[in-house]
């Protein structure tokens, strides 16, 4: 089936879950990505169970800091 991931059309196995999509997309830190499907956030605890459907629009949002991870 086809999904729109980050604005780009991708072909993925049918009924793939959000967790499986993160693997297919080789997401570096799957535990710390925020995911929206059709403009709605999916809770992290639901990634493994949430099945995607044909033409779903998926957005993956990553933490981006800057220079270095310093305390305070």
């Amino acid at each position, binding site marked *: 089936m086809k999904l729109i991931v*980050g*604005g780009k059309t991708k072909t993925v196995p049918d009924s793939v879950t959000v967790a499986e999509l993160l693997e297919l997309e080789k997401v*570096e*830190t799957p*535990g*710390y990505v*925020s995911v*929206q499907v059709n*403009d*709605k*956030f999916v*809770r992290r605890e639901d990634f493994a169970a949430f099945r995607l459907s044909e033409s779903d629009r998926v*957005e993956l*949002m*990553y*933490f*981006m*800091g*800057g*220079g*270095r*991870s*310093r*305390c*305070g």
Partner: protein
Amino acid sequence: MRLTPEQVERYSRQIILEEVGLSGQRKLLESSVLIVGVGGLGSPAAFYLAAAGVGQIGLVDFDRVEINNLQRQIIHAAADVTRLKVESAGAKLRALNPDVKVELYPEPLSAANALRIIGGYDFVIDGTDNFAAKFLVNDACCFAGKPFSHAGILRFEGQTTTVLPGRSACYRCIFPERPPDGAVPSCAQAGVLGVLGGTLGVIQATEALKYLLECGELLTDHLLFYSAREMVFHKVKISRSPGCPICGENPSITVLQDEAPAACPAEGAGGDGEA
């Protein structure tokens, strides 16, 4: 406030804009913007806001200039190494535009001082590099009802959003909690192309100017993602999250707190507090 002939000449290229005019320029000269972190993002943002004639610019940074900052933190020069960043940046802004009153805060932003410092400004630019500081800026601005621009950069990518607290999605609507230290890559580990701070920092300054001038559409309820590698901007619609821990229906964060101090990862030998 009456503009002097020199001011009319200095700002003529924007006064000529229908959305600015003499009244918009007066507004800018009477406005104030706080820049938290005078690094990769804060340097270009500060320069352009000073050039545009924002009357008061506050700079928060407790760090000193290091040579590895100069690849992207363009407000600092080789001769500024070891100097306090706020002093280095303050001198450049005053030299660029004597109309601008520059306030220096050579201290880390914390739960103890954030509301006091932020309270004195019309708009806040988050130019910090670390998640404890980014969440603190978000939370303080939410409590103070202060509009702000968030941005982050990494490798060849950056992202930014503008927040009008209580009216549009905040940083915690997207990312409810801070990742543990070291859980996601930082620029020190993964690197960053210096120009990314320019691209994103200038977008932040643009948002500040639009907010102050009350013109155009702000980047609220959207996360703008930029890939320099692909040279693509991608705008993602986001909405306020009912479960947001600070601006949701049942907020779990009710007082401003510093993020739990975690051990600094051993990787960091350099010392910049901003992107």
